[in-house]
């Protein structure tokens, strides 16, 4: 690790001011992405600003939404009684991610900002990586890319967004609350991430020094059922090959409301709007679920190493839809 200065942030205003003024300052929350990448030599800030003592922890409830302080840990959010009752797929996605130890450290703000797991990105001895070194090329496109994305990719980067919990949060239209040099903002999660396009190093709409303060998660209607399925190379403690987060309201066999997002396939948490359009107003049966899955993967651009993901993602989605619909009857 390169040497750096460690500073404890006293309050949010000061943290934003210090980080905004200095491009070489990074925020430090749980550290499970930030320190990992510093050990790998990928990140080398001159100063780490520890935000973990800021009063951005805790969960508050209203009738329509829950508001989660950015420093709330994954385990704390999963343990919340209202999440358990009204947002089961959020809880499932949280608990299927990382390990208990990591979930006790990892914050929800940090989780949304976790970086690519692409092994070329994480290895500075590899020259070609547009995300790490803009304009240098992409080693993954011609290399090993089994764990990479098939949706939202570009010729410049195919790295996956690997967060599990961001999948149900995208399906729910969660909102990211931030504080920056120009004041506060509320950014829908579905507009928060940027596809790699020609600038894979720019991953989201945050300004340098802008602090995530909270995530607001709208509650599902009480009639809704939801589920998250994660398919991976080992049973536990592994990133997704494919995953699906689904919430449905079904009445008399007809789908009234559908929320669908996919993980393991997108350069960002992938909201499957087209699949939702197929589902809404249709019968809750396997034929409809298959059409929805076709629609969701319509724009997939697989490479040789990711070709298997197209079918796997469809099947993962169909299985998740069937499970949710079955839980209903």
């Amino acid at each position: 690790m390169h040497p750096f200065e460690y500073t404890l942030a006293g309050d949010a205003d000061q943290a934003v001011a210090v980080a905004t003024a200095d491009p070489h300052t990074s925020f430090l929350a749980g550290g499970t992405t930030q320190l990992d990448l510093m050990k790998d030599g990928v990140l080398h800030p001159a100063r780490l600003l520890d935000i973990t003592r800021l009063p951005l922890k805790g969960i508050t409830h209203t009738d329509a939404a829950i508001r989660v302080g950015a420093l709330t840990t994954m385990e704390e959010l999963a343990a919340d009684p209202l999440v358990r009752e009204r947002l089961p797929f959020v809880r499932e996605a949280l608990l299927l991610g990382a390990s208990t130890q990591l979930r006790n450290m990892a914050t929800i703000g940090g989780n949304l900002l976790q970086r690519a797991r692409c092994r070329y990105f994480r290895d500075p001895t590899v020259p070609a990586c547009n995300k790490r070194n803009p304009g240098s090329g992409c080693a993954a496109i011609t290399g090993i890319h089994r764990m990479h994305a098939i949706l939202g990719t570009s010729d410049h980067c195919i790295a996956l967004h690997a967060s599990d919990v961001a999948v149900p949060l995208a399906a729910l239209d969660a909102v990211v609350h931030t504080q920056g040099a120009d004041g506060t903002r509320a950014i829908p999660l579905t507009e928060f991430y940027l596809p790699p396009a020609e600038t894979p190093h720019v991953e989201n709409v945050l300004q340098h020094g802008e602090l995530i303060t909270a995530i607001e998660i709208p509650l599902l209607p009480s009639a809704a059922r939801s589920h998250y399925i994660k398919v991976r190379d080992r049973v536990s403690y592994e990133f997704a090959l494919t995953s699906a987060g689904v919430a449905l309201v079904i009445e008399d066999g007809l789908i009234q409301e559908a929320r669908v997002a996919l993980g393991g396939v997108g350069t960002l948490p992938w909201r499957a709007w087209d699949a939702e359009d197929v589902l809404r107003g249709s019968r809750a049966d396997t034929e409809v679920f298959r059409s929805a899955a076709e629609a969701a993967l319509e724009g997939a651009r697989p490479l040789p190493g990711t070709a298997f993901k197209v079918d796997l993602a469809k099947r993962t989605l169909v299985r998740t839809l069937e499970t949710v619909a079955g839980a209903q009857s």
Partner: protein
Amino acid sequence: MKHVETEARPSGQSPPEPPQVDITLKVNGTEHAIQVDARVTLLDALRDHLGLTGAKKGCDQGACGACTVMVDGRRVVSCLGLAAQYQGREITTIEGLSADGELHPMQAAFARHDAFQCGYCTPGQIMSAVCLIAEGRADTDEDICEFMSGNICRCGAYPNIRAAIREVKGAS
């Protein structure tokens, strides 16, 4: 927290000292005031500065669980946190688990069930297992597998680790 100023040196001389921090860590009930390089992780502070070598360094990247310790009663991987972040927290290591030389029931169960071979993962497994029971997640073998998955055992002692956990769970 106080930061130790590092003096600027003329170029061509040896590089400047990396920034240091003065910190106080409370480990197993005892406070320790130390000065460390800001880069020092909680794991390295425990092992190299406090002589508590129970927590082990496997991967140093959060992937294996060998460095598991408790912070305010919750298990964490000490290799992915800076020592400076853990001031004012109650840190418990494997050395702090047993009172007055008596083995903790989980330690005794690991010994009884031969829940290790080389033993390198064992302190982390035991810290995790103690937390697992406190979390109420040791009811089924499936739960034990799922919620112990952050602790890798290269020797594959998993069946015996599960047996030890089941026994302590049954007795509690």
